[in-house]
């Protein structure tokens, strides 16, 4: 267990918020380079290698080229590089928090932070549950997307957007239904 693993979930969340604010202030290539160095150092402290880092930023691999293209065209190459670095660094940092903190601790921290909002009608426990469901749903829906893509391929409709979107939306709604039922079966309404 690294020092980062041992740090409290609340502390890490506050740290993440602080780092995001600091990243917003990054404007020069030198500062962007420092940010990258900082992220790499933190991963090293956590005892996590390049593979763990890649697994966190991998979902951006299609998104980033698009963003770079747009920014390059509108703001020029330098700004594009700095802005994109900021984005990737932020995602990597958020990923670091999830990698080093059990979800239940994050949820407990969030529940604690939301607690005072109870007076204005926010149900902290429900909010934390919603977050857990979101975290849980990502791999389940990614799985569904993979299945739908394979089915589309098997039927030779590789480039048909509708053949991808319709089953994906229908499948997601069906899963949402099933999840609602499961929550009821497991006593959410207690």
């Amino acid at each position, binding site marked *: 267990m690294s020092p980062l693993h041992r740090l409290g979930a609340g502390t890490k969340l506050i740290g993440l918020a602080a780092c995001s604010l600091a990243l917003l202030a990054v404007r020069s290539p030198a500062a962007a380079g420092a940010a990258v160095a900082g992220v790499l150092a933190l991963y090293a402290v956590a005892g996590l290698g390049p593979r763990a880092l890649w697994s966190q930023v991998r979902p951006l691999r299609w998104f980033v080229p698009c963003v770079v293209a747009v920014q390059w065209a509108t703001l020029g190459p330098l700004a594009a590089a700095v802005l994109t670095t900021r984005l990737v660094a932020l995602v990597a940092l958020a990923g670091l928090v999830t990698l080093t903190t*059990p*979800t*239940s601790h994050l949820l407990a921290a969030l529940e604690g932070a939301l607690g005072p909002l109870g007076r204005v009608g926010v149900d902290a426990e429900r909010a934390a*549950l919603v977050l*857990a*469901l979101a*975290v*849980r749903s990502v*791999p*389940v829906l990614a*799985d569904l997307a993979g299945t739908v893509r394979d089915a589309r391929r098997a039927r030779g409709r590789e480039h048909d957007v509708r053949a991808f979107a319709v089953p994906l939306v229908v499948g997601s709604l069906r*899963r949402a239904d*099933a*999840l609602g*039922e*499961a*929550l*009821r*079966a*497991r*006593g959410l*309404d*207690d």
Partner: protein
Amino acid sequence: MTEVVLDAVHVRHDDREVLRGVTLRLTERRVAVIGANGSGKSTLARLLNGLVVPTSGRVLVDGLDTRRRGREVRRRVGFVFTDPDAQIIMPTVAEDVAYSLRRSGLSKAELGTRVAAELHRHGLADHADHPAHLLSGGQKQLLALTSVLVTAPRLVVADEPTTLLDLRNTRAVADRLAGLDQHVVLVTHDLDLVAGYDRVLVVDGGRVVVDDVPAAAVPAYRRMMA
């Protein structure tokens, strides 16, 4: 002992009659439900924990009406779905089991000990902190079952819990169900699984058409489908 009573139950969806007059009293420890696709098995299973309420008639679990006492009924009746992905709520294995115990009044430390013990008992100890989505299908179903069993329900209803599983995991889940102290109602298309059951219901077109011991009900069902 747990007693489930269905009294002249009809279930209608829009204007389709899915169950048409089912009257039953279930007190056996092992009850299996078999029947063709669309015959109404899942609807019958969902009636038992109040996920579906009858359009007319009533369902009582230990005297509690599922229509008015749904919460208490669901505390007594655990439900295992076909697709474990649908019923695993928390991102990691241990957290999902802990979710079931959130109202148990255990301290954080006691909760951890309890969850660890349960995972050990169900052969999932090595996976406690793994994300649930990295488990195999069979392990996911065992996790779903574990999360249901920790709440100590009196009756476990399982709707085709082995349909998505290979032979080995089917055996593992079926054995786990067979070994329970609780009453079990198992919906299945796998006729091999019902051999040791006390009572088999064959559902057809929204009615229970055969209600007998496996040695009589299974051949009757095979003849119906021939």
